[in-house]
């Protein structure tokens, strides 16, 4: 029975990650064609002979044009900065919620989750209305006389960061809250009794003990943010370079599904590598712990 239960996540992983990954890998080794679907099959049966053609050219191509490397780097940079900002904003919020009275805690958690009741797309669209030239922010600033001409807030990197931080903040707060609320208050008392000031207590007790929440929250923000397409498309400027839009161009403008698949495969590797390293590092920490 136990073994069966363990199979569920494996089946999940296989069905929703490995199978699509294999399909992508297969397409990435193919060549584009004007056909339905728009690429050539890898295998060919002719007179009882099976021919398999693997085209590695798509991967070579990604290395030849610096655009792809720059897009990966730019995506990782935008995602990393957003994750950091989300952490800096989310940590105090999670901390405050965890320290609140139980009755109020439920209310505060509710407020964190509440935005999910509205479509993500509508919420990003709402930011357009807030940030645009004659939007709420600009009209208010003009009205109080802080500025003479509307600020360009939308179609900027600033708007992309704002959109990502706003959208993913709950994914940071919830895991942080989960670890912080389990924090044993007697440890903090012990630290105080031993003469530690609040800051020292935070740095030596609270922060290390909430590390799993920081890692989980950062992963939940960083990974989807790297591949983010919607937020930069709606709020970003034309010069916001992210791998999502490069993928879109390969898939739609060039109709080159093989190169698009190669871009996606490389992106998965770019994401999987740091995660694997991190997990190994964490595993070592775990072993070292008493």
């Amino acid at each position, binding site marked *: 029975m136990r073994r069966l239960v363990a199979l569920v996540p494996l089946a999940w992983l296989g069905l929703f990650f490995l199978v699509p990954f294999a399909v992508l890998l297969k397409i990435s080794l193919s060549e*584009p064609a*004007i*056909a*339905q*679907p*728009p690429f050539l099959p890898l295998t060919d049966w002719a007179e009882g002979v099976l021919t398999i053609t693997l085209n590695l050219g798509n991967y070579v191509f990604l290395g030849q*044009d*610096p*655009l792809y490397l*720059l*897009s990966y780097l730019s995506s990782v940079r935008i995602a990393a900065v957003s994750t950091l900002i989300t952490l800096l904003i989310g940590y105090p919020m999670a901390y405050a919620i965890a320290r609140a009275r139980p009755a109020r805690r439920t209310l505060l958690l509710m407020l964190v989750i509440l935005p999910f009741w509205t479509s993500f*797309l509508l919420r990003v669209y709402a930011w357009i209305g807030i940030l*645009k*030239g*004659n939007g709420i922010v600009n009209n208010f600033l003009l009205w109080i006389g802080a500025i003479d*001409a509307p600020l*360009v807030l939308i*179609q900027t990197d600033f708007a992309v960061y704002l959109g990502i931080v706003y959208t993913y903040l709950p994914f940071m707060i919830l895991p942080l809250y989960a670890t912080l609320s389990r924090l044993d208050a007697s440890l903090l008392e012990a630290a105080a009794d031993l003469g530690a000031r609040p800051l020292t207590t935070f740095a030596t007790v609270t922060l290390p003990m909430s590390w799993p929440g920081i890692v989980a929250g950062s992963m939940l923000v960083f990974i989807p943010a790297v591949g983010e*397409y*919607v937020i930069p*498309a*709606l709020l970003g*400027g*034309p*010069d*916001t*370079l992210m791998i999502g*839009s*490069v993928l*879109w*161009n*390969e*898939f*739609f*403008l*060039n*109709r*080159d599904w093989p190169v698009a698949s190669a871009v996606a495969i490389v992106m998965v590797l770019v994401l999987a590598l740091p995660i694997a390293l991190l997990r190994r590092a964490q595993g070592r920490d775990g072993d070292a712990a008493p």
Partner: protein
Amino acid sequence: MIRTFPAALMILAVPAAAAAQGSLNFYNWSDYIADDTLSGFEAETGIDVNYDVFDSNEVVEARMLTGSTGYDLVVPSLEFMARQAQAGVFQPIDKSQIPNYDNLDPEILRIVSANDEGNTYGVPYMMYSVGPGYNVAMVEERLPDADMDSWSLVFDPDNAAALADCGIALLDSPSEITAAALNYLGLDPTSEDAGDLEQAMELLQGIRPHIRYFHSSQYINDLANGDICLAVGYSGDILQAKDRAAEAGQGVEIRYTIPAEGAQLGFDMMVIPADAPNPEAAHQFINYFLQPQVTAAISDAVFYANANKAATDLVSDEVRTDPGIYPPEETLAKMYSAKPHSARYDRSLTRAWTALKTGQ
């Protein structure tokens, strides 16, 4: 054209209902139909319509090439339709099921047959041009002496710089904007020559710092609200912005003219996918659409010209006499149509377009 979010969502959209007996799954451009077109069809035929919209030919193409879309009727632009037809994704139009086919203008059928031999797969839905539309007051204030009937209004870097603060938008459509740039430079707008592309990109690079955004549908609202002052876009979309601005009564006046240098003349074509669940309903819709009063009502609503000769007299004067919608003979002579690109050219074009937009 690319990268429009609503379009991206539509990829995920599946026709609302499976094609039961007596329903039509119709996939059309956004803002491209009259209020009563579908209800009229449902009342006349008893066929329910599931209506989905897109704002990008590329999205339609990706879906067509994937197959099993569930749609019975789709409206790609002619040059895209030509390539999709090569991939074998459409079924021939059965003209015997369309008694109103004779209403179509034979001259237009002849022009589109250059990309659809024998008019086999497509029936013209509406015609459009690609040109600059602008906010009259904002542009005249900044450029009192500029020639408003010329592409130089946007392609001249000095003009573009003067308009940068009130906002310029370009279609996020490398093929259409590059063709306009080539035409402005006096080169063949359908050229696939690398040197020509370089020249066009040089021209566009010159105005790039003054472009606020590239998008294929957002400019309708932004023009109407005065959030931008110039958009290179689809004729009817700009005229819809003009109409919305006039209705809002905020004093925003939008103008669209086909520039003296000429512009791209495009055709959107009704096609029936090879795997359409209900091709009979699609034929019935085409026949319904080709009734003069139905076509005319759509032209009146969306400000695009149609190919239905019998409908011309029924189109309102405001639309029929607008040279931006029904171009006069001498303008028509300067207009050009697009051809399907080779895969190699599409790759260089997309690469150049990315470089233009991102600087990379």
